[in-house]
């Protein structure tokens, strides 16, 4: 139990001042800009957006700056910030088969329709530090993108520059690898519920168990990367015996479509980057279903590949009951996984332990003192102890 305390305002104010100073660090060094964070610490921004459950690069960058790079603190700031904004509604489900790809790989097929695109990846790097990164490079004077080389552009420049460009080419539809297996009947369908199923929303109703798959996916999508990674790892090491194949991983941008109540028709409101992972698992078959592959699904904002993979592993392990598998491991226990995946909740409860618990502790202290005294009063002199213990043992 937590009992409120008063006082300490001055110390708290000063602590916050000191925090500001520490955040700024050595003033001889230029202050980091949110633009630099959003452009150059992109994967930190992506993680904060995914686990903060809010797609907004510049807000995530600001949160990282304010939190001095503590990503869980930044995620906390983003979660707090989103509660101040009104909800306009729900988007149409994103169509990841229409993704404008920047990466797409499969560990199950080397020749897959649409090809394998490595994209910007750490895979195949040697994990050697690149000392040239220690030297700062000045900003390029070039305007980013395809526009003119000049620093300032006016509208006539823009017009002439883009007049020569080709007409829009829509991204080709690249089917999901697992759906190809589905056509052969060797892969289960992507979900049991129909495509127009209305999902539950854990930002609106509290989590209750057993949780539906849509609720589990929402929880895992905002869950802590480290927690899901460790659980995913545990499934591979034998706790749930779930060694999967990465059927497909894709990273790229998709359009967001939204139908405002007052318009009555859907409009594209912009594009966001997503990472999607589909895991393939074996399935022996049951009374209801023939032997076939089963699947686990992961989806995140930005480029969060490790997270998407872990999420797909856990999505699959949480389906143990549905698929008639024996539940033996933590990763198969929905209540355990979903109740502990959220790092804002977790940090809130763990970190509250450092807040004043003086009254609580005083009562525990008194209790221990009394018990200690009672114990001392009941126990005989020290030289008799050994003898007593033998008689006790004999009595037992």
């Amino acid at each position, binding site marked *: 139990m937590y009992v409120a305390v008063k006082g300490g305002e001055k110390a708290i104010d000063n602590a916050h001042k000191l925090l500001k100073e520490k955040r700024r660090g050595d003033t001889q060094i230029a202050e980091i800009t949110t633009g630099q964070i959003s452009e150059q610490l992109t994967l930190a921004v992506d993680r904060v957006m995914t686990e903060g459950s809010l797609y907004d690069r510049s807000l995530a960058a600001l949160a990282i700056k304010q939190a001095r790079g503590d990503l869980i603190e930044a995620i906390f700031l983003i979660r707090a910030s989103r509660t101040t904004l009104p909800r306009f509604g729900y988007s149409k489900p994103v169509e990841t088969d229409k993704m404008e790809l920047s990466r797409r790989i499969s560990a199950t097929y080397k020749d897959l329709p649409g090809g394998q695109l490595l994209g910007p990846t750490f895979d195949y790097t040697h994990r050697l530090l690149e000392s040239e990164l220690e030297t700062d490079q000045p900003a390029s004077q070039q305007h980013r993108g395809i526009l003119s080389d000049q620093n300032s552009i006016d509208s006539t420049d823009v017009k002439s520059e883009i007049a020569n460009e080709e007409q829009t080419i829509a991204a080709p539809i690249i089917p999901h690898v697992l759906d190809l297996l589905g056509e052969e009947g060797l892969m289960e369908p992507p979900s049991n519920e129909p495509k127009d199923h209305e999902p539950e929303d854990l930002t609106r109703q509290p989590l209750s168990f057993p949780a539906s798959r849509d609720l589990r996916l929402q929880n895992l999508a905002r869950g802590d990367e480290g927690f899901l990674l460790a659980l995913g790892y545990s499934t591979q090491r034998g706790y749930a015996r779930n060694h999967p194949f990465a059927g497909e991983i894709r990273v790229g941008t998709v359009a967001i479509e939204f139908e405002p*109540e007052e318009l009555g028709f859907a409009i594209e409101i912009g594009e966001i980057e997503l990472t999607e992972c589909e895991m393939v698992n074996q399935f022996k078959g049951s009374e209801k279903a023939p032997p076939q592959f089963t699947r686990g699904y992961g989806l995140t904002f930005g480029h969060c590949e490790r997270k998407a993979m872990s999420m797909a592993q856990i999505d699959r392990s949480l389906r143990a009951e549905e698929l008639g598998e024996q539940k033996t491991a933590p990763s198969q226990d929905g209540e355990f996984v979903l109740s502990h995946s959220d790092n804002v909740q977790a940090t809130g409860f763990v970190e509250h332990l450092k807040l004043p618990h003086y009254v609580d502790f005083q009562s525990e202290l008194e209790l221990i003192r009394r018990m200690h005294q009672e114990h001392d009063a009941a126990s005989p002199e020290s030289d008799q102890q050994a003898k007593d213990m033998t008689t006790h043992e004999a009595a037992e």
Partner: protein
Amino acid sequence: METPIHGFHNPPVESSIAFRAILNAMSKPGTVQPILVDLAPVEGINKGTQLAALTLTDHESPVWLDENLSKQSVIEFLRFHCSAPVSSDLSGIQFAFLSKWHDAASLPPFPLGTPTFPDRSTTLIIEVESFKKSEGVTLSGPGVKTTENFDAVGLGPDFWSWMQQNNARFPLGMDVILTTDKEIAALPRSVKILEAY
């Protein structure tokens, strides 16, 4: 061509003021709360109803309109400013807007909540002509220190007996907000009607 600008002009501030008025009305049944927000008139509904709609409804709260209010101007206002879906599926209605109290028999069977979730009931927003403090009924119950005299002009004869029945179902039941162009008042389901007409 100038169209009057509807809705809140400064949503964070004005919606807080409006919410406070509704909160005061609900927590002190029978008190009359002035509308301290400047609203452009919307054809078909009074300003108190506008205030309640702007403050309480959104895309997640299906609303119901009685026949008199089912006008293009009202529907458009609710769609545009509140994003509130106008629905005829009674089971999901969160707010029902009535141009006046017709009679208990013609009130559709809106949800009354469930014992586990008594909040899942419909709130009625009923337009009245004016409020009176001197005549009418005597209220008591949570939020009323001793008793409160209250009346609204334009409520039908069986409104108060309906309110008594509504209270008898507590914790289930509907909450009521009464509106005019200048003021609002509220009668939550917890209010007791001591002396009906």
